[in-house]
């Protein structure tokens, strides 16, 4: 833990992966929003498929 952290090591550890991450995000904000809305819509469809007894109330005033 006492080993000296050089600027090069720090750059390698942080900047390169961050740049990689940025480069991997190829979609623009509009496309990301569209994809996020579509994902939420699909999740809603899947939730609807799951049968819940009519008497089941939502877990309001949540107490474990």
């Amino acid at each position, binding site marked *: *833990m006492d080993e000296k952290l050089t600027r090069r090591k720090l750059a390698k550890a942080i900047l390169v*992966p961050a740049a990689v991450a940025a480069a991997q995000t190829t979609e623009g*904000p509009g496309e990301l929003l569209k994809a996020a809305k579509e994902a939420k819509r699909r999740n809603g469809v*899947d939730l609807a498929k799951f049968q*819940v007894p009519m008497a089941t109330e939502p877990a309001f005033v949540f107490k474990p």
Partner: protein
Amino acid sequence: MPGLTEAEYFSTVAQWRARLKAREISAVELAKAFCARLEALGPRYNALALPLTKRALGRAKDVDGDIKRDRWRSALQGIPFGLKDLLSVAGFPTTWGAKPYAAQVFKNDATVVSKLDSAGAVLTGKLSMVELAGGGGYRYPAASLFGPGLNPWDLGRWSGGSSSGSGSAVAAGLVPFAIGSETWGSILTPAAYCGITGLRPTYGYVSRNGAMALSWTMDKIGPMCRSAEDCGLVLQVIAGGDSDDPGSSGKSFYFAPQYARKLADLRVGYAEVDFNGWAEPAARPAFEKALTMLRETGVKLVKAELPETPYGLAAGAIIAAEGSAIFEPLIESGKVDELADKNQAAGLKAGLDLSAKDYLKAMRIRTLVQQAMRKIFAEVDVLVSPARFGPASKIGDRLDARPPVNPLPKDRGMSDLGAAGNLAGLPALCLPCGFAEELPVAIQLVGRAFSENTLLAVGMAFQERTDWHKRTPPKSAA
């Protein structure tokens, strides 16, 4: 570093307590040493949000005054700690890890901070986190105002989120313990990835007053430490009723694992497929050894399974609906686009469109999950499964594109225990259990609501027989 050896920085709360009581070291000396270390090494892991050295030294001086007069307030008196930057400290910036809130300052301390202050614990700094605790759904570890949380075991790996700084700071010996928070995985993931012990308390046990809200019905605050015993000592101080938190259970916690049921009387449920099917191949030997060690504590291991339920979908819908409602002003102002992870901004915006029908369906499913967990806990006392199925991911990896194994097992086992436990508000204890690819892996114990003493008793027995929680990152990795 003034005064302490490298090994001493990895002492437990109980060990520091004994040395303070024996007057071997003063609170000021301890605070000085840990403040210096946090300031020097915190940036190496992107773990430090804000050093609070001056405040810490002032508090430590007061503690020394108390100790001089033999006034012992708690087991944490004089012990330095770090705080996730999701909790407010009066007069200092509380960024929530997000650029739009970089200059935010609150007038009041969070209840947890007040409790720790009153107990004589010494806050040395605020620790980094994933922006807005990741509520919008983030794709990369870099989703933070402070950069990606770097793992002390390997700087090329993620420390986990969203309590990233709390995980790395404890693992690297920058603080004896830290406070984190979990909505869905944010204490257990960094604890597992960094090789430390983390406790997610029962919902409502620890006040959320002064904490950023992501999900009113799922947020929990909890300790991240070096051992199960330390988690118990910290929880005793931070738990308790609070009229400023509408979700508060009004219950106090007394750390008394010795009064929990005898280990030989405990039934611990597990699903074999979690350990040899869902777990990544490299991690399976460690997980299987963990089961053997757990059995050696005297508990009875029995087969268990979770009913088929869309746990993840329900948890995701609840967090999306509540999180987007909470951050509506940020979204409407357009400042949400300043977040580092654009996927997270998109997720928060999309959450505003979530229908009442979907939210209510998710909350009704949650009722069923609570009922199912009660039924399971009529048969067993504790559930055990891998905390994460493998070691920490690489810093540049997409977090939403990593299948644990390929192909996925047909039997779900208890692979959804994380989502189920959080939906039902149940406590969980993360215990390091070995290594895979030279990185820590961990198991989680989940119990009935308010059964923390049972979890801690099992965790302490496990840690008496293992030394994974005592391992420290190799110098070459740091």
